[in-house]
């Protein structure tokens, strides 16, 4: 018997329901308003009154309207067929909705339940299995999608039978397993999981030990993101957060990419809808859309579902991770999610923390970031969820609660600076404030030693020092004047600029420069460092700035030129020639 209730009060999208039976925290319910049923989630219970947040507009709702409680939390539906789909925050398939507008109470299936999949068994009768053990696989796009023992099945089971290779619908039974008491369970290709809980079906969660290549020099070379790691990109509006995120989602070396558009602009999602089916993944030759799942709750969609969207995205990420895949989950922007929490907390009349955000904001954020990670699966394989979130700090002030809380939780910090954006130095990742904790990991150091070159991390630090010294020299020049400092200061300043212009800046809208593979990054970076190792002799500061400006120009042409093309080497020769011609000390 389901618990039911009646509406007692309405404050915007918070509805107070007088329930006639047991109600659970975070339980899902449906609020009836005329003929439409709107999904809602319990967020507070006081006596018989359940406070529910409605994932829709409460316009026209009346006191005494009926509410039905579902007895479970918000769940994601996990099965083959998720790739390439476009969902809203509650996993409704947006493409299946009729009409131009999203009408209230619209519900669409996240999957095609009629489609048949070519199933291949991996397990056999007698195998000992537990939650997330692989029973079989189907080919979903180019991913070998594993059919697993549902995550909610705790304890140990023995496989009784597995279906033969053949075509099955997702709801067909593909295996039967028995628990220790001999109770048998039919397993299909579909399982459900409550999105707010982390999937913990793995044996261990080691420290990240590999780098996730993104093709963005300022990240890969200077502050690499680890596979299974976490990072965040705070930046004021107009600093290029979204452009950077889109670049990473196109180029990142991941098997599955989940883009959560959380409370941001609809046109940005439209860009992905329009471009991704056309663009090709440089590594596999497949269309980008084939490896992408979009969870889209734009800023004008219901606020409560905005909060759900990041959890839905993360849960789908964890599902694919359990198949031994490299997953990248990106959320733009986690500030909107925090604001959704603030709106709720405000309507519940909770005592506010800083800037009226809820007191437990920091805990909620770190709890969420901790769901990312590299994991060792029960069968010895590894899988990973790398999480990259953007933060939109109010007023561009990095001391606000969301940025501060996220800084505690994430290991990479890519601070976008207004100053760099103003002078069109894109990506506007601040080379001095930003950091990647992974550079300090011995695992990552030895990985880079092998993947790129011995002692690569030392080279990275050398470059950072040059940029830092360049900035200091610039400060001195600004205080004392061009003539007031020795020419050496100018040289130091320009060496910093050289790294900035050639390595850190990158044209995300140029077909060639947009994506810079690691091999090319290594070559360009070492070429730039070689130049920096010279002690040049200049007559005056103007000669110095002229020399470096011309050099930067050549380097940039090189960045625009096709890798290893004739033109590329021509510019390289010109650079070497120019460096040799210039008198040295």
């Amino acid at each position: 018997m389901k618990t039911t209730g009646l509406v007692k009060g309405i404050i915007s999208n918070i509805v107070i329901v007088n329930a006639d039976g047991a109600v659970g925290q975070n339980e899902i319910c449906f609020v009836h308003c005329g003929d439409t049923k709107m999904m809602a989630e319990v967020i507070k219970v006081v006596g018989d009154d359940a406070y529910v947040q409605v994932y829709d507009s409460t316009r026209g709702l009346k006191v005494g309207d009926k509410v039905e409680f579902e007895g479970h939390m918000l769940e994601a539906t996990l099965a083959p067929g998720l790739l390439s789909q476009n969902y809203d925050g509650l996993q409704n398939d947006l493409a299946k909705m009729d009409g131009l507008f999203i009408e209230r109470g619209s519900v669409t299936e996240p999957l095609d339940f009629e489609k048949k999949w070519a199933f291949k068994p991996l397990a056999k009768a007698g195998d000992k299995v537990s939650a997330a053990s692989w029973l079989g696989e189907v080919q979903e796009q180019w991913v070998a999608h594993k059919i697993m023992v549902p995550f909610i099945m705790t304890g140990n089971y023995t496989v009784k039978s597995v279906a033969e290779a053949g075509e099955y619908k997702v709801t067909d039974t593909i295996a039967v397993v028995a628990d220790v008491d001999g109770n048998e369970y039919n397993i299909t290709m579909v399982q459900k999981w409550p999105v707010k809980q982390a999937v913990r079906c793995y044996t261990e969660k080691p420290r990240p030990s590999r780098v996730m290549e993104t093709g963005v020099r300022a990240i890969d070379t200077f502050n690499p993101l680890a596979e299974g790691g976490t990072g965040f990109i705070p930046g004021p509006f107009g600093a290029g957060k979204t452009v950077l995120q889109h670049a990473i989602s196109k180029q990142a070396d991941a098997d599955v990419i989940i883009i959560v558009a959380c409370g941001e602009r609809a046109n940005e999602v439209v860009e992905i809808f329009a471009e991704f089916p056309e663009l090709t993944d440089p590594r596999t030759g497949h269309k980008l859309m084939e490896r992408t799942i979009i969870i889209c709750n734009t800023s004008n969609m219901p606020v409560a579902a905005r909060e759900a969207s990041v959890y839905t995205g993360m849960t789908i990420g964890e599902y694919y991770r359990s198949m031994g895949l490299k997953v990248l989950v990106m959320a733009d922007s986690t500030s909107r999610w925090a604001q959704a929490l603030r709106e709720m907390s405000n309507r519940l009349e909770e005592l506010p923390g800083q800037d009226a955000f809820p007191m437990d904001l920091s805990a909620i954020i770190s709890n969420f970031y901790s769901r990312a990670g590299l994991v060792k699966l029960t069968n010895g394989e590894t899988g990973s969820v790398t999480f990259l979130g953007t933060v939109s700090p109010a007023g561009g002030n990095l001391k606000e609660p969301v940025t501060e809380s996220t800084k505690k939780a994430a290991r990479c910090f890519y601070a976008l600076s207004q100053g760099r954006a103003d002078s069109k130095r894109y990506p506007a990742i601040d080379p001095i404030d930003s950091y990647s904790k992974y550079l300090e990991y011995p695992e990552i150091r030895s990985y880079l030693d092998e993947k790129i070159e011995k002692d690569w991390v030392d080279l990275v630090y050398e470059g950072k020092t040059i940029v830092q010294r360049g900035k200091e020299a610039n400060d001195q020049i600004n205080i004392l004047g061009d003539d007031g400092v020795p020419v050496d200061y100018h040289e130091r300043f320009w060496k910093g600029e050289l790294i900035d212009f050639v390595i850190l800046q990158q044209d995300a809208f140029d077909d060639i420069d947009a994506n810079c593979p690691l091999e090319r990054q290594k070559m360009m970076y070492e070429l730039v460092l070689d130049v920096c190792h010279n002690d040049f002799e200049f007559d005056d500061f103007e000669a110095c700035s002229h020399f470096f400006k011309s050099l930067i120009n050549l380097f940039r042409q090189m960045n625009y030129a096709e890798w290893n093309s004739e033109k590329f080497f021509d510019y390289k020769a010109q650079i070497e020639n120019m460096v040799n011609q210039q008198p040295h000390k």
Partner: protein
Amino acid sequence: MTTRAFQKVYTKIDNITKATVTLKASGVGNDELATVGGKLAQVVKIMGENVTLQVFAGTEGLKTDSEVVFHGEPPKLKVSDNLAGRFFNAYGEPLEGGEQIEGEAREIGGPTVNPFKRKQPSELIATGIAGIDLNNTIVSGQKIPFFADPDQPYNAVMANVALRAKADKIILGGMGLTNDDFLYFKQVFENAGALDRIVSFVNTTENPPVERLLVPDMALTAAEYFAVDKGEKVLVLLTDMTLYADALAIVSNRMDQIPSKDSMPGSLYSDLAKIYEKAVQLPNGGSITLIAVTTLSGGDITHAIPDNTGYITEGQLFLRNDSDTGKVIVDPFRSLSRLKQLVIGKKTREDHPQVMNACVRLYADAANAKTKLENGFDLSDYDERALKFAHDYSEKLLAIDVNIEIEQMLDTAWTLFSKYFTREEVAIKAELIEKYWKA
């Protein structure tokens, strides 16, 4: 908003604040309209039998025994082609005593367009102003505000943009517009012979501030009628959104909500997004382009209103007085059009993106030189040239009184490059230099 026979009349109000009244009533729907002592009000909170209403015109003069009549429906606007050429108040009633519009009554603030059904904006909207077309190109379906200090001529610039933009319909939503500015818009549109393309919803400073809350939804409901039903290209002008947000703050304050940054309601972001996100490129070819004004206090963009706006809109246009040339310019540093990448170099000449960036970079060099000069340092030859370039750039391209075609803008920029700089200093792709450099 006539009273209907079956409606129940309440005559006992329990609480009256400056903007809200609370009474005991039953069978009332959330967001529903009501008339309180002859004034229009909307349900904002229901707690058991206690219903709180926000009275748009303010509660002055209301008595505890004033008559309360519930309408049983949320605010609606009657839409039809007859809207064109008409001026309305915030409730959608004709101003100047004109006749009522007959047509289908639609709820304002309706549902959102499914993002999957949207089309990518791709049509350039030319304004003739180089500060916009060259540096911050606007695209149909975009939403972009002017950030301006109250003393700047933003309404005049906006009227110019609207008239040059070749839209099928222009919908003006005026919030807290001074009567003078209202008459200015009316006159400009009339002189341009464009009145039949204009629909206006106006709340002037003479009207109660809370009424403003209805204006954007009214304007956008009309816009959706023309764009969705008729497939027209609609341009919506909203001025001034800061006054709209102030009205939101008044209401939330009266409802005892905990304020967040700058005394604004915690839901400011969602409230503004609901309006701005109505900008859309539709599959039927129709579009809603939204140009708004957000006035700043002392140029402060970190204030909650411009800050939240900036995160919602697709860029912002910043007006600034340039002391070097004595003109109002579109600030190239702080202005941005996020959608320009969809058209520049594609719908415009190939050199557009690089020329635009080079101009701004060189202008930044000039700004640095100016700082040096102000700090009493000697200028290098390059600095001198950069400063001269900046002066010409500001006068010939950035000033808001410029009205030329985009090709001309690009040619002007190349002329300035070759006048003041060498090819290396301009640092543009070699192929483009070969093709466009003015010897």
